[in-house]
């Protein structure tokens, strides 16, 4: 949630400076810097003119590898930085994880053996070197609490989180853009005010509270109304306990369990995206060339499809990239309330049991997902927006 807000606030002033300062910007600010709604239109066309005049850019016809490769390198460097920061954060924290691993009566040799087994011996630098070397081979170490490889722990949880996050993100985008587009056309009307108030409130609702509210409504509501049993949605876990299902019944069972968590994740997502889609669409409608198209007497449908939608697409794609951390954060609470064993719940359990390797591994995975999403958003914007493929 927070990143969307700051990211968008940034976008209002960033492009001024970023275009003329340094070329070494990394992925995130780039995505943000290019994100302002129609404010960038004028700047982009100005840039285009400059490019036409600049002979050194004349051969720059193919926007592809040349643009993506440096971003990819930036993204990998950023990921390394995140990994290093997290490693330092965890290893400089007070308390010795090794002391939790052994019984209080353990001898010095036993403690030393445990340390070596979990890679906790040697200097900080040596530990860092070993950990980074293993990380490069895809090895995230051993979980202290579960005595399993961290990679296996994450591999179990990741698909479940991707299911919740992916479906709710898709719903958020579709719903948010539909609603935002609808009242972005009606700015200043009473309907616009009502929808804006609703979306602002929904956006502000903490997801853990929303989860509890939905839980009460979905569990006691059908019971109070005397609805049939199949309408009462399960509120906990992924599978019905003790049921051995396979094939379609199993999929239906998982879908029924996923419905409420997805709803709780999607509602603030829809509200958040609608808030910004409204501005993007309103700005796109107000752009001079759209007004010219309207004045020429083109049909409303044609104007919407060819002039408005194309202009509003890039800020919305960037927004989706920026919305991702919000979905991640929301899923921590939602997975906790609905006992959904995804990444968020695994993270909370690892924090509770001071399972440092799992915390470290999960943070790196989270950051990798966020960085990848931003990179993807940026590449997509470049591919879809003809104005940016030149710059």
């Amino acid at each position, binding site marked *: 949630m927070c990143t969307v807000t700051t990211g968008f606030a940034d976008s209002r002033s960033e492009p001024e400076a970023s275009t003329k300062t340094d070329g070494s910007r990394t992925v995130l600010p780039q995505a943000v810097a290019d994100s302002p709604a129609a404010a960038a239109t004028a700047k982009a066309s100005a840039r285009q003119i400059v490019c036409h005049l600049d002979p050194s850019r004349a051969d720059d016809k193919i926007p592809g590898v040349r643009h993506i490769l440096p971003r990819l390198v930036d993204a990998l460097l950023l990921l390394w930085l995140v990994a290093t920061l997290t490693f330092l954060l965890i290893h400089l924290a007070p308390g010795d994880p090794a002391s939790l691993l052994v019984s209080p009566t353990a001898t010095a040799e036993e403690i030393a053996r445990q340390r070596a087994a979990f890679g906790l011996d040697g200097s900080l630098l040596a530990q860092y070197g070993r950990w980074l070397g293993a990380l490069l081979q895809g090895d995230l170490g051993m979980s202290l609490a579960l005595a399993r490889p961290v990679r296996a722990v994450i591999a179990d949880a990741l698909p479940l989180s991707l299911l919740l996050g992916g479906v709710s993100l898709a719903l958020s985008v579709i719903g948010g853009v539909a609603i935002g587009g609808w009242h972005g056309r009606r700015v200043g009307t009473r309907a616009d005010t009502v929808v804006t108030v609703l979306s602002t409130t929904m956006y502000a609702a903490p997801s853990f509270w929303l989860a509890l509210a939905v839980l009460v409504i979905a569990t006691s509501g059908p019971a109070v109304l005397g609805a049939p049993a199949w309408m009462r949605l399960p509120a906990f876990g992924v599978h019905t306990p003790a049921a051995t299902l396979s094939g379609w019944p199993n999929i239906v069972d998982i879908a029924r369990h996923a419905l409420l968590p997805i709803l709780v994740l999607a509602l603030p997502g829809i509200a958040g995206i609608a808030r910004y889609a409204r*501005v993007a669409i309103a700005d796109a409608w107000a752009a001079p060339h759209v007004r010219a198209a309207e004045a020429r007497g083109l049909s409303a449908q044609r104007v919407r499809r060819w002039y408005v939608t194309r202009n509003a697409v890039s800020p919305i794609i960037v927004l989706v990239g920026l919305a991702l951390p919000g979905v991640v954060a929301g899923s921590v609470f939602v997975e906790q309330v609905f006992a959904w064993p995804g990444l968020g719940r695994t993270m909370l359990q690892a*924090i509770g049991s001071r399972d440092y390797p799992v915390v470290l591994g999960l943070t790196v995975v989270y950051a990798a997902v*966020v960085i990848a999403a931003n990179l993807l958003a940026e590449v997509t914007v470049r591919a879809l927006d003809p104005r940016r493929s030149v710059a």
Partner: protein
Amino acid sequence: MKTHSAFSDRRVLVGALVLSGLTLGALLGPALSPGDPVAIGDVMQSRLRPPMSTGPSGALHVLGTDAFGRDVLARVWIAARLSLAVGLIGSLLAGTLGIALGALGAWVGGALDRALLALGNALLAIPRLVLLLVIAALWGPGLPTVVTVLALTGWMGVARLVRSEVLGVRETAYIEAATALGVPPGRVLRRHVLPNALGAAVVAVTLGVGNAILLESGLSFLGLGIQPPAPSWGNMIAGGREWLLIAPWIALAPGITLIATVVSCTLIGDGLMRGPSTAPAEAARS
């Protein structure tokens, strides 16, 4: 933000009114409420009373009592003190840190600037809640940790804003003039650059207050923030969780107060920023 005051924007006015009401309640409310909001008294007699009922002592519980017989309204007010203070201080500290680091990077430039940018980007790549969880868990929960952590994880956006503003202002003629007149660089930065680069940062900090309050309540809900018996909206909701079906008001009251607070902060921030605004659309239409 014209001279005829920011309150001419209706959103700012509504937000400011709600926040003032909450602040007033936080200051005076506990004194006017029945019973001690933290201590646990004669539980069996007074617990789980519905809103607008009277307790054994004849005191009126406007929002009912919780599972330990404590007045919910009084606890909401006490928690408001905590949440508003944590949100405000956390966001102000984050803002100050962001302004300092952003201006420093832009002003000094070179390796320091690149290092600060890289650090900011790395911290932004980790979802803030995850970062908060990790730090709060490692350094132990509690009020000082929450505030520190909010500041340490919230400065990046402001720093980026201020940095780009400073880079823009630095190129202007009046800065060049000040430098040419022999004003020392530190003084140019303080007196001429920063005041002109702060507008956007103020908006970001305002929006940050709501965010900080949400994050604090989230941490407290998970048991990693403010620890009971001290009430916080987050841990009140966590406490009401097991009574949802019998006594929904325990979780409902802090939840609604929390939403009202965050909405007010968003309204003020939106109003100050003039966006998600309709300004361009309206200007084009007129």
